[in-house]
Every structure is written in structure tokens, then in C-alpha cells.
């Protein structure tokens, strides 16, 4: 102890400004206290020094120089404590009285500190702080801030929803707290007082949740979600340059009132469950479920982390704990990244496409092919590998996990089910599946529509579900998977399923089909995609599906994708969406028609085949037909639409491509299949944009251009002309 005191008095601090010195000193004081835990008088002295130090550190001292003198005196007087035990009492009293004349007034000083502590704990200083910095008026900065803040807000949402299922997850609370904190920080610099104030209040709320003073209840979550929405609104206003006055003030004020009246109930925080680390350790078979509360208690009492406590108790080895921690952290960790303008990325991908084509033009050049040099051949295959890798990497740069989009759906399901009095949860699978970022935005709307449908019309009310022997909580499963060059997204609910009979009745009533039409159930389901099928309120009455499902179909087809429905009455419905991974490249079947080659997107193709002469016939008023197995389908001569002179006029000599559009199948007649290839889609420019039957162009391996056939367009041309 003598030694410690010597170190103290020998001046580790240069002055009231020397924070590092103060830090050192505080550490020594801790050490001192640790050694003489029971000496009440000494402890009192140390506490006094600490208070003054804190005041100095926080720059809350009214007279730093006087405080500095007091510190020196107090530290000097500590030297008087040379022995242990109560004998110190008188020495302490002496020391205290010794400094009394110099310090202004001891009781007053403590009062001052107490009130200062309260102030800094609860008060906001936005006015004073914000006005301090004004020169940051950089529109570029503001724009980027809006962008970044929005991004962070979406992570808030998903973490918040995670908290709902696991309210004690401090890391999740932290993850929500952090973005509000950052947004507040920047808003302070940029003088965005409303955003600043709002995020500040939420931050406070979350801070009490973080420290266990406030339990994360549904209403807390609701409050934070509302705040997120308001913040988004404020950001959007900023973005559109409306100087943030329209929505802002009243909404923000109202909300702030709500937050402020939201008193933290200290008792409510008591039941925070064990940290996830514990759960993970149980899963690993390291700990028993029953031991968790004990360890948690110990870690609480000693202020250590759960893992540390488990190690101390000898219940887990450091290696096991660190493994669990790693696992816990795994989901949070993100790879380092750089922001890039998406236009640059798109250009890069474009140019890589060109590179691949240019390479194959060179390599397939007859003169080059003639060269029989081994070294050249080796180099060429090396070049091939490299370009393929570049293509793969550049494509992957535009890919993002579908997770974010999926996670937005959690909120949707939550809100919808709350509103309708149903109970529904969203589960997901394969959310790490990656998809072209351009596609992400495009599939958002259709997903919302489908999920809305599932909740509105698929999932039954809890009583109804219980009666049917189901879990009162409905489940919607949304999953994504990469299959070949496509991404397959399934949305599956365990609701009541589609009623084919009612759909048929409805379709007849609307004049979409006639009573004579015979369909199987599957075809009947497809009727809900018909534009005329339903309007929202009507459908709700008959509890069918169909809210804007035609829009969904249009969207999916616009992306060159396909959508199918599978439904089992009483068991649920699933939508099966198949989309290309990227909009820039399609998997195409290259077919020869006359002198030119054309590309038919493989996704549109059901099969390609040759038929016998007998399968072909004509019917008055219906034109040319082909019988493929048991079904009869119209024949569409592609050469007619592209004004080509075909090699084969007879359908049994040429090649037939079977495609499905709506409820009908068609046969497209081409001369032959040249091959199958992934092609980079090129726009034909505004002049040819509206060209029916053509959706774009592509450069083939030999450098020639081929047109991409828009199957749907061809079919509607056919239907129009045969009417």
C-alpha cells in the first residue's frame, strides 16, 4: 500500500488537462481500494477524489484550478493512511479538515456534483449543441447521409423484429441502438434538428433497454418501428428537398410526447432471459439447461460476461466459449465493403460481356483456328479461364442476398396480421441466396402482393384454424433457391387453400370463361391471374384470392420469369416463382430461321420436338394445328413474322418449340436448333423498343447479332391476326 501511495503522490498527473495522467491515477485509486476494501474512511476519501476527477474529465467543473489544488491536497492526505483498520479514522478526519479551508464548501460541492450528474444523464442539449456547428452545408454529404441512414433504418427494422422473438438479446438491442446513435450524430452535424431529436429520444429509450432498466415489450417495439417510419418520412422529405416542414413538426412532436410519457418501469426489466451465448453452449452440449440461471446469476453479481462466468465455474473451457461467441457473432459480422456507383458496375458488367464476345470472336476466327501451335492453344485456354472468372466475379458484384427483401416481409406479415386480428408468422429459407440487385427492387412489389394475399385470404382466423385442428398461428414460408440460371422463390401458406369451384363461378360471372369451358383445378387457379378476375372488395367477400394478382403476373413476366400456383384445399397455397438470376443475361436457345439466327429465352420453352406428318392438320376457322401427344395446339410460323425465307416450310421437317401462354400451349415453327447459350441482352435503342415480337438483341460467339424473340409478343400478334 505504501508503494501505491508513493506512486500517487509522486505526481502521475501533469495538470487538470492531463487525461491520461488522471486515468493512471484513477487506476491506482482502484487498486488501492481493492487492497483496503473495508477501510471506510479511506474509501470516503478516494470517492471524493474520484468525484472531482470525474468533474474535471467531463469539463463540468466550475473552477478547474481549485479542483486541481483539492486533488493535490487530497492525494497528499491519502499518504497519512499508513496502516490498516479503523485506526485510520482520525487520520482521515484530520486530512479532511486539513483541506476544508481551501475547498469552497464540502456539502455544497457534493450537491453540485449530484445535480450535475442528473443533468447530464437526462437532459438533451440539442439547441446549444446544434447551433455550435453550422458550416457543414454540403449537399453531396446530405445526399449520402440520407442514403446511408435509410440503409441503417432497414437494419433497425429487421433487428427489431428479431428482438420481438428474443427480447433479451442485448446484442440485438445494441444493433438497433447503434444506427439511431449514428444517425443522431450526423444529424447533429448537419443541423437536422428534428431527426436529431427523434433519434435521440429513441436512443435514450433503447439505452434503458440495453441496461436492463426497460423490458423490451411489444409496445416498445411498436414505438421504435413507428420512429423508424417517421425517420424514413423525414429523410424522404429531405431528399425531395422540401426542407422538412410538411409532415415533420406535428408528427415528430406527437411522437416525442409519446416517447417521453413512456416511463421506464424498472421492475419490468427483471425477467430478461439468459444471453444467447448460454443457449449456444447448451446447443453444443457444453452446458446443461438447468445450470444457465446459476451462471447468469454469477455473471450478474460479479459483473462479468456470461461466458467468463461459465469459464470461472469450470463449466466450459475458454475454447468452447470462444467458439460460441464466434457463432453468436457470425451473423452480425459483415464483410468489408466499398461503395460504388451502380452505373459504374453496370458498365463494367456490360464491358465484360463485350470482352467475352470479343474473345470468342478472336478465338473462333478461322485463321487463328488454323494455327496449330501448342503454346497458343494453351494460352487460349488460359485466356478463356480468366475471362470466365472475370465474368463470374463481375456478375457477382451486382448480386446481393435476397435477405433484405425477405426481411421487409416480416414486418408486413406482422402489420397485416395485427390489423386483421389473425395470427401469422413468417419463416424464411435460403435468404442468403443472391440475386441481381436490379431484380431486387423489381420483385419487391410482387412479393408484397402475394404475401398480402396469403395473410388476407389464405390464413384463417385463429378460431377457424383451431376448429380445423391447425395451429392457431398461421405460417407463411418464403424461400429462395438458386437452380441453374434461375432463382426460384416460393411463398407458401398453411391457410385454407384456393377454392377452385368458387374461382370458376367467379370467372364465369365475370365473363372470363364460359360455362362450357372445362378446366382442371390447376388451370382454374391460374384464372386468378386474369386481369378481369377480381377487384379487392369483391374478392374479400367470397374469401378468394386475387388482389392484384394480374399485376404480380405482369411483373414476373416483365422480368422474364414464370409464376405457378399449387393449392391444396384446407392445407394451403403456394406460389412458385421462377426468375432469371439477372436481367442482363438470359439463357437462350439459338434457333435458325431462314438465313438468320434468333434467340428464344429458355425460360419460355416447355419443350422442343419434331413431329410426324400425321400430327399436322388444318381446321376451318382455326388455321394450322399440331397434335403433340394428346393436346392440340396452334402452329405459329416464326418465319412469317420475321420475313425470312425458311429452309423448311413443312412443319414435320422443321423444329417445333412448345411454349405456354396463359392457359394455352402453342407451337412455334423454326428450322433447327443451333445451340444453347447464355447471352448478354442488349437494348435495341428507343427506335426499336416497341417492335412487337422482339425483346432485344445479343451478340453471338462469332460476333454476329441475333434478335431475342419475345414469345408473349409473338403469340399476341398471332392471336390478333387470327381473330
Amino acid at each position, binding site marked *: 500500500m505504501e508503494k501505491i501511495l508513493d506512486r500517487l503522490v509522486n505526481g502521475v498527473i501533469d495538470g487538470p488537462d492531463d487525461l*491520461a495522467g488522471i*486515468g493512471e491515477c484513477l487506476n491506482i485509486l482502484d487498486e488501492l481500494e481493492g487492497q483496503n476494501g473495508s477501510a471506510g474512511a479511506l474509501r470516503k476519501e478516494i470517492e471524493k477524489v474520484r468525484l472531482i476527477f470525474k468533474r474535471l474529465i467531463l469539463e463540468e467543473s466550475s473552477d478547474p484550478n481549485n479542483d486541481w489544488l483539492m486533488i493535490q491536497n487530497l492525494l497528499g492526505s491519502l499518504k497519512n493512511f499508513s496502516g490498516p483498520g479503523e485506526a485510520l479514522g482520525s487520520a482521515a478526519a484530520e486530512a479532511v479538515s486539513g483541506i476544508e479551508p481551501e475547498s469552497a464548501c464540502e456539502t455544497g460541492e457534493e450537491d453540485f456534483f449530484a445535480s450535475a450528474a442528473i443533468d447530464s444523464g437526462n437532459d438533451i442539449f440539442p439547441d446549444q449543441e446544434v447551433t455550435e456547428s453550422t458550416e*457543414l452545408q454540403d449537399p453531396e454529404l446530405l445526399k449520402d447521409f440520407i442514403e446511408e441512414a435509410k440503409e441503417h433504418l432497414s437494419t433497425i427494422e429487421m433487428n427489431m423484429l428479431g428482438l420481438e422473438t428474443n427480447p433479451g438479446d442485448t446484442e440485438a438491442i445494441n444493433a438497433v441502438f447503434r444506427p439511431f*446513435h449514428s444517425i443522431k450524430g450526423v444529424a447533429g452535424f448537419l443541423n437536422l434538428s428534428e431527426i436529431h431529436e427523434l433519434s435521440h429520444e429513441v436512443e435514450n429509450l433503447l439505452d434503458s433497454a440495453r441496461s436492463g432498466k426497460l423490458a423490451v415489450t411489444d409496445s416498445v417495439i411498436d414505438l421504435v418501428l413507428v420512429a423508424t417510419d417517421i425517420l424514413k418520412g423525414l429523410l424522404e422529405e429531405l431528399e425531395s428537398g422540401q426542407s422538412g416542414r410538411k409532415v415533420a413538426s406535428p408528427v415528430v412532436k406527437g411522437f416525442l410526447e409519446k416517447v417521453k410519457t413512456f416511463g421506464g418501469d424498472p421492475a419490468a426489466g427483471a425477467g430478461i432471459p439468459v444471453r444467447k451465448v448460454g443457449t449456444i453452449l447448451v446447443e453444443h452440449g457444453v452446458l446443461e439447461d438447468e445450470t444457465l440461471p446459476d451462471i447468469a446469476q454469477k455473471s450478474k453479481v460479479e459483473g462479468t460476461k456470461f461466458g467468463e462466468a461459465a469459464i470461472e465455474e469450470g463449466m466450459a473451457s475458454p475454447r468452447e466459449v470462444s467458439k460460441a461467441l464466434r457463432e453468436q457473432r457470425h451473423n452480425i459480422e459483415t464483410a468489408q465493403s466499398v461503395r460504388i456507383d451502380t452505373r459504374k458496375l453496370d458498365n463494367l458488367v456490360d464491358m465484360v460481356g463485350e470482352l467475352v464476345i470479343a474473345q470468342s470472336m478472336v478465338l473462333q476466327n478461322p485463321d487463328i483456328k488454323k494455327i496449330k501451335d501448342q503454346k497458343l492453344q494453351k494460352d487460349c485456354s488460359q485466356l478463356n479461364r480468366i475471362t470466365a472468372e472475370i465474368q463470374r466475379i463481375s456478375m457477382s458484384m451486382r448480386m446481393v442476398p435476397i435477405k433484405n427483401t425477405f426481411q421487409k416481409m416480416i414486418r408486413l406479415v406482422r402489420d397485416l396480421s395485427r390489423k386483421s386480428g389473425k395470427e401469422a408468422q413468417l419463416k424464411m429459407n435460403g435468404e442468403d441466396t443472391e440475386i441481381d440487385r436490379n431484380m431486387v427492387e423489381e420483385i419487391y412489389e410482387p412479393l408484397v402482393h402475394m404475401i398480402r394475399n396469403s395473410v388476407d385470404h389464405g390464413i384463417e382466423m385463429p378460431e377457424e384454424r383451431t376448429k380445423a385442428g391447425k395451429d392457431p398461428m398461421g405460417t407463411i414460408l418464403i424461400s429462395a433457391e438458386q437452380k441453374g440460371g434461375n432463382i426460384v422463390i416460393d411463398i407458401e401458406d398453411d391457410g385454407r387453400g384456393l377454392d377452385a369451384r368458387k374461382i370458376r363461378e367467379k370467372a364465369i360471372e365475370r365473363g372470363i370463361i364460359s360455362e362450357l369451358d372445362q378446366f382442371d383445378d390447376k388451370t382454374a387457379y391460374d384464372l386468378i391471374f386474369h386481369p378481369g378476375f377480381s377487384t379487392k372488395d369483391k374478392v374479400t367477400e367470397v374469401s378468394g384470392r386475387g388482389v392484384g394478382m394480374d399485376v404480380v403476373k405482369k411483373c414476373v413476366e416483365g422480368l422474364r420469369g414464370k409464376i405457378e400456383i399449387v393449392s391444396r384445399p384446407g392445407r394451403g397455397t403456394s406460389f412458385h416463382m421462377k426468375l432469371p438470376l439477372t436481367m442482363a443475361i438470359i439463357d437462350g436457345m439459338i434457333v435458325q430461321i431462314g438465313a438468320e439466327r434468333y434467340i428464344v429465352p429458355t425460360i419460355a420453352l416447355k419443350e422442343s420436338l419434331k413431329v410426324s406428318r400425321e400430327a399436322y392438320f388444318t381446321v376451318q376457322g382455326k388455321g394450322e394445328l399440331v397434335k403433340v401427344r394428346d393436346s392440340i395446339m396452334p402452329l405459329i410460323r416464326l418465319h412469317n413474322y420475321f420475313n425470312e425465307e425458311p429452309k423448311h416450310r413443312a412443319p414435320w421437317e422443321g423444329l417445333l418449340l412448345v411454349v405456354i401462354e396463359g392457359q394455352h400451349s402453342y407451337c412455334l415453327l423454326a428450322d433447327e436448333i443451333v445451340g444453347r447459350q447464355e447471352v448478354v441482352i442488349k437494348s435495341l435503342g428507343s427506335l426499336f423498343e416497341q417492335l412487337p415480337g422482339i425483346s432485344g438483341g445479343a451478340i453471338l460467339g462469332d460476333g454476329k447479332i441475333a434478335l431475342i424473340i419475345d414469345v408473349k409478343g409473338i403469340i399476341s400478334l398471332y392471336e390478333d391476326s387470327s381473330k
Partner: protein
Amino acid sequence: MAYKDLTVLIVDDFVTMRRIVRKILRDLDFQNIIEAEDGMAALEVLKTTKVDLIVSDWNMPRMTGLELLKEVRGADNLKDTPFLMVTAEAQKENIVEAVKAKVSNYIVKPFTAATLEEKLAKIIPR
């Protein structure tokens, strides 16, 4: 040494905040500015680059400013690097922790170039 000869490392997980701090540092004539998105990333930078000043946010994922500070002070080759902690008014109380861990000084956001300069004057020998 003049500010323009010093290398500064800004640590913050929020990109906009890094840009703001960078801008203010530029106003003070700093030329060599490196950024890191959290404590871990900062340590990576520190492994390869000699840094004369660290300006770090407190609240970051993966590794907080306090944890970074402890790492820095615990490393023989880095322990004397001036370390300025950026904090928010509401979190100021925690600064005592940072002081115990030998932070050189701290600054409360939002701050102006003038405030920053004042703080730097205390921690960088000129």
C-alpha cells in the same frame, strides 16, 4: 510537427460521419487521412501503417472504440499514439472508462473545427 505531416486514422462505422470528420480535419490542414469502419479494421490498418493520431467513435459493431483503445494502449509499438475518442453528449458519462484506459482526450459531437483544434492542441506535441 505541422498537422499536414501527420497521418490520422478516422474510425467510425457510419460513412457519413467519417466524411464529416475528414472534412473538419482537412479544414485544419491535415492531408494524410485514413479511414476504418470499426475497431477491427482500424487494427488492420495499424498493423501496416504508422499513424500519428487516432480519432475514433465509441459505438461500433465488432469492436468498439474503447476496445480499440485498450488494444492500442496494450501494444508496445502503438501505446503512445494520441487517441481522441468521439462521443455523444448522452454517453459522456462513460468517458471515465476511456480515461482509465488512457484515452488522450475526447470530443463530444457535434463539434466544430475550432473545438477539435483545441482538443488536438492538448494531445499532440507541437
